[in-house]
């Protein structure tokens, strides 16, 4: 009896600090922020509860920034996914030395701070950088600018995010029993058929986790769009910071944060659903 009580108390004591941090540093400020955005300023044009939202969404450049953020995020996640999946498959099913070496190499970006990665990408992609020089030598003189725009943001995000995606996808692939794949082969399924009918469905959960976590990570990023992005449109992380620190417009900034939160929470729901589905199955 007393052992059970002690274990319960220990469990509670271990859970309490993060719970308190969550309550006081995340949930409470979030609620205050939402309440603040629903309170019209004294000199506001309308007394509607949603006047702050109407103002933010009524500003053309902010609408553009929100759309830009969503589109850049979707493209970055799609590219990361398309590049990581084959790599994860290769690392899972190839047992050669080259594969082992690649397995170490692809991890490198995980250990490079984002700021350094961003500056490296700028040096690599700018007008007189390596990529431009190579293209120029190949006779391609006219090409769109690769940095200080959406292209630069996507390329840097891809470089930074591939290792994490490969890790999660790879972990899912490891969990698939070899006998299932051999079974599929035995009944005559080719590689593609095995992939689409066995591997992809069995790895659905880690696929969803990868996609949703990558989406939220890229969507909320600041450093990469700040350093590699252009003047306008900008991603929400940069816009919110500018509204808060440069334009001294706290309410607009918080309103944008709530809008960003709503968008991210839709993705969050998908994440929670896929994780809990896996746990039910386990």
């Amino acid at each position, binding site marked *: 009896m007393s052992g059970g009580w002690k*274990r319960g108390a220990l469990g509670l004591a271990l859970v309490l600090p993060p719970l308190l941090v969550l309550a006081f540093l995340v949930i409470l400020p979030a609620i205050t922020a939402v309440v603040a955005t629903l309170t019209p300023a004294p000199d506001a044009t309308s007394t509607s509860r949603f006047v702050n939202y109407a103002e933010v969404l009524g500003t053309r450049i902010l609408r553009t920034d929100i759309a830009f953020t969503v589109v850049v995020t979707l493209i970055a996640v799609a590219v990361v996914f398309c590049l990581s999946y084959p790599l994860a498959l290769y690392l899972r099913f190839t047992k050669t030395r080259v594969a082992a070496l690649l397995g170490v190499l692809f991890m490198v970006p995980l250990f490079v701070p984002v700021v350094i990665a961003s500056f490296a990408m700028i040096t690599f992609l700018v007008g007189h950088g390596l990529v431009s020089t190579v293209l120029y030598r190949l006779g391609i003189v006219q090409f769109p600018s690769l940095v200080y725009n959406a292209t630069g943001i996507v390329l840097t995000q891809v470089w930074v995010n591939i290792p994490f995606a490969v890790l999660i996808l790879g972990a899912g692939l490891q969990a698939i029993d070899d006998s299932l794949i051999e079974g599929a082969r035995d009944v005559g399924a080719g590689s593609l058929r095995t992939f689409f009918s066995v591997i992809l469905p069995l790895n659905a959960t880690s696929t969803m986790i990868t996609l949703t976590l990558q989406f939220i990570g890229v969507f909320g990023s600041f450093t990469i769009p700040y350093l590699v992005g252009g003047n306008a449109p900008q991603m929400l992380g940069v816009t919110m910071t500018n509204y808060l620190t440069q334009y001294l417009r706290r309410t607009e900034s918080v309103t944008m944060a709530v809008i960003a939160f709503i968008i991210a929470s839709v993705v969050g729901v998908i994440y929670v659903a896929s994780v809990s589905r896996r746990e039910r199955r386990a």
Partner: protein
Amino acid sequence: MRRTAWGRAVTVAVGVTLVAFLIGATGPTAGAQNPTTLNVYINGDTNIFDLWNKTLLPAFTKHYPQYRANFVPLLHGEGSQGVFDKILAAKQAGRPTDVDLWETQPSFVAQGAPQGLWVKLTNSLIPNLSRVPAQKLEAEDYYGMPYRGSSVVIAYNSAFVKNPPTTLDDLLAWIKANPGKFTYCDPNTGGSGQAFIVAVVYKFAQMAQYTGSAYDPKAESAWDPAWQLLKSLNSSMYNNGFHPNGNVAVLQLLSQQNVYIAPVWSDMGTDYLKRGLLPKTVRLEQITPPLFGGDSTVTAPLGSAHLEGTFTLLNWLLTPEAQQMVINAVSGYPGVDWKYMPDSVRRQFADVAKPYAPLPNAKYLADILRLWHEQVAGGG
């Protein structure tokens, strides 16, 4: 099994507590013997960080070994809101703040003044303050101590620009006549870009209306022609109107001869020329009407637990020795009156040390930045 896990947890907890006690117990005694550490928070670009970290603070602690300095850089002012909130929160909680000196933008000094966050500087607290021209101190109501100044000037490459524009209108005409050879940094990332757009705003609006402390958003409709003009310049800018991030990026474009004319800070431009980072053919000049400039000030939070140390540092900053260091390291204008500086220094700055335009007040400047983003960069 359960028993052992519980036992191990207890051992770890006891161990951690013991270590914490030991650290806590040695803390105060060790502090009494050691020098007082001053936390110096500095907003700025990397050149200003080097000035403090490599030059001023080591020299200060050498003179005054009873102090040690902990340097906290805030690149381009990132994190300033957090520093301000921290000082304010400490004041509201009636506790000392760990910020002993802060170099920040005027908007934060203005925001904190009515709440009594800063020390009001006087000659009796800082004897050397008497060398600073009074109007420089009045600009921030004696809450900020100017220790270096600079203004934005025009840098041009005389190898390509034979007849440099001397007025703003000449410059605007030159930009349209020489597409792709001018740029200014995104005003959200550097003062040299701000100075250029503010000069264009002043061209169409009464400057005096925006530099005082009064604020009326309705007065901003007068700026519309300025946005139209700046937008029309975008197609004649370097890289089709992409504005580089920060003052340094503009200097790099000048040094690679990608652009021939650009607004730069006088101190950064002089410094780059001195270090050979710009082609020798690059010259600096002030145009008419002049671009803005100002003094960089440091502010002492009233809640600092080491005010005596802060005052010692402030007083030392205004000595000829420290002021000469500022000029040598970042080619700034001195905070003290020019007459306290040697002749050689006054000659060196003859081309650029001309009157400069005042900055708009913090609220108008914030709106100028926002409207530039909406109307010019966003193409509104």
